[in-house]
């Protein structure tokens, strides 16, 4: 069975339509030009907008829950684990059918079918696996890691890739606690090391031409992994897991060794993210940096309580407003690198450079109109040029 469930040619045309949309939103091409490009690269996919996606997702969930209820009623809930497995198989069959025959792509229906099938499989294994709690959790985390990774590989589902990363972190946690009673400080360094390795892996994979369609998902993993690395050694995480989960005695609460390191990490790393983002002019890094810097001060207030919360709110509010106002004023004069003008879509357009390089679209544009009824599923498309092999 081919890895990708979708037609390569349609995926590529969809990317091109998206690029035209972003170029239009950035004010580089006109609405008429955008429509012309989108007409030139028509796609068969059924990808409704966000409201319809949510609506279709809700209705799919209603139907899926009703089917499960009927199955439970018909069998008197004799063997729920077999029913869960059956529901998973039915969900996947329907999902594949919807993709092949109805060309659903991020329609809400496929999202719900995919995730409910994974949940049903996990329920099945939850019933089947017996043994100590820690071991059960370890095995379940491995299974969910495999399932979500396969889901991302086949259906390009971005939530799946994030859940695969979460499963990976949970797997490391369970693996460690299975061998050692309760988390110790080594666990947090181990978690940080695994997260940072995922970050570099995701970065490396984005350079591979064959994985052009996975780039947006891998980029998400990259950012999530870097946040995960930060969170692994965040003072709150360490303190919460070491003390609150009562693996150490309460009397030790004031003696967290390396606390100076955790505090330093908690404060300095967000600043590094922010400065790095500003240096390379990358919006996601800037956003991560801003959110984490603000979160640090929030954490500082909640944890150390230097002033009353309401006074802190007023002071931080004034500070934030003053900083934002000052920067806006500054950018009115010095706007060579950064600007305060609203330009939606500009940053996304830069990200798509990677898609062009990977897919080798520069020299050879994909065929504009595929003949009606021609089946280009699983391995069609012939992209070359630009030094990329472009074999999909």
């Amino acid at each position, binding site marked *: 069975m081919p890895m990708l469930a979708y037609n390569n040619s349609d995926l590529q045309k969809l990317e091109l339509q998206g690029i035209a949309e972003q170029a239009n939103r950035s004010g*580089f091409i006109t609405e008429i030009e955008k429509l012309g490009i989108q007409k030139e690269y028509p796609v068969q996919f059924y990808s409704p907008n966000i*409201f319809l996606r949510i609506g279709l997702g809700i209705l799919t969930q209603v*139907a899926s829950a009703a089917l499960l209820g009927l199955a439970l009623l018909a069998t008197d809930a004799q063997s729920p684990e077999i029913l869960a497995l059956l529901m998973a198989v039915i969900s996947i069959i329907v999902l594949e059918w919807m993709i092949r025959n109805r060309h659903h792509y991020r329609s809400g229906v496929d999202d719900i079918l995919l995730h409910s099938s994974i949940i049903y499989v996990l329920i099945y294994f939850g019933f089947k696996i017996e043994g100590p709690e820690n071991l059960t959790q370890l095995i379940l985390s491995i299974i969910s890691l495999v399932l979500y990774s396969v889901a991302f590989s086949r259906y390009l589902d971005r939530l799946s890739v994030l859940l695969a990363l979460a499963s990976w972190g949970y797997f490391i946690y369970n693996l460690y606690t299975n061998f050692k009673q309760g988390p110790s400080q080594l666990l947090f360094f181990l978690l940080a090391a695994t997260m940072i390795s995922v970050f570099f892996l995701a970065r490396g994979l984005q350079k591979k031409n064959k994985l052009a369609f996975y780039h947006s998902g891998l980029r998400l993993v990259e950012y999530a992994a870097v946040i995960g690395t930060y969170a692994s050694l965040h003072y709150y995480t360490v303190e919460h897991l070491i003390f609150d989960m009562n693996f150490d005695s309460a009397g030790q609460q004031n003696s967290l060794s390396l606390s100076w390191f955790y505090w330093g990490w908690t404060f300095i790393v967000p600043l590094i993210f922010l400065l790095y983002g500003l240096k390379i*002019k990358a919006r996601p890094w800037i956003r991560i940096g801003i959110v984490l810097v603000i979160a640090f001060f929030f954490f500082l207030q909640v944890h150390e309580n230097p002033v009353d919360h309401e006074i*802190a709110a007023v002071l931080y509010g004034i500070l934030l407003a003053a900083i934002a106002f000052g920067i806006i004023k500054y950018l009115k004069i010095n706007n060579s690198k950064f600007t305060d003008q609203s330009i939606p879509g500009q940053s996304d357009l830069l990200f798509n450079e990677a898609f062009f390089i990977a897919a080798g679209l520069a020299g050879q544009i994909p065929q504009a109109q595929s003949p009606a009824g021609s089946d280009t599923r699983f391995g069609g498309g012939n992209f070359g040029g630009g030094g990329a092999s472009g074999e999909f």
Partner: protein
Amino acid sequence: MALAFFENLFRRGLVSEASLEKLKQFYAGHHSLSLHNELRAILYLGILLISSGTGVLVYKHIGQIGHVAIIISLLASCLACFGYCFWKRPKLKAGEKTISPILFDYIVLLGCLLLLILIAYLQSQFQFFGHRLGLATFIPMVLLFAFAYYFDHKGVLSLGIINLAAWVGININIKTFYGIAELNKKENIIAAFLLGIFLVLVAIAVKKRGIKAHFENIYHQFGSYALFLSGIAGIIMFENLYLVWLLLLLLVGLFHYKKAFREKSFYYLVITCLYCYVGLSYTLSDKLFSLLQPGNDQVYANLFYYLSTGVGLAYWLTQLNKKMNANASL
């Protein structure tokens, strides 16, 4: 690489020379990164922190600060905010696009939030409006609507509409699940339905007459939610008149369905289908399927109903979506 793609499109006549030039400039790196949204988000967070912090500060430190000091400082802050906005407000000239000063929208919002704190404080500490609680919500409502129109602020308009709902007896806040928990009384349901009709009529009027036509969407969204939610609540709460409420809900649905197609709005299409589906499903489950033999028969009927209608409505929505898209491209 990306530029080569656009150059190819230019050669094929799909992109003009002027557009290609802009793209060349962009890909050559001669562009500034826009921090517009990030800076506005920080500014907004700052204003929210100031207003919510002030509210709690006043509440917690009444004894220490003293009534007069609190009132004077709140009043002075409000006057300072509205004074700034009055002098800095964009002057509207026919045919010209106006640009507001950076902080304008945020200061208007801050001033209005502080005003609400001041009025709440005066009422709670001095019974400023006596026992006429309606007046305590009516006065700030009038002021909020006046400021929303004068300073042309959608956020303040939303605050005004929430105050209007409170005035008719429906508190929209997190404690009442944004008003849903208030719909357990018959008088509130009727009030919410009438409020919904009023807001939708206002939305139509402002659009038709061109009086701040851009406020239409705000009025309509609040009105639509009030109509749909009160319609469903009416079916549940009015035991003997549930068919009347079902009919009203379907009429509201029909109105929104037409609006969705007229304006090519997927948003209105989805909410119309889902709210009507909830109302209709509740009626069938509670009134029709309950006539069946209690036990498995009722459960089977319900499950078959939800299975078939879930699939059926999803299919119908996709067909409507395609129809709407086809019409849009005409």
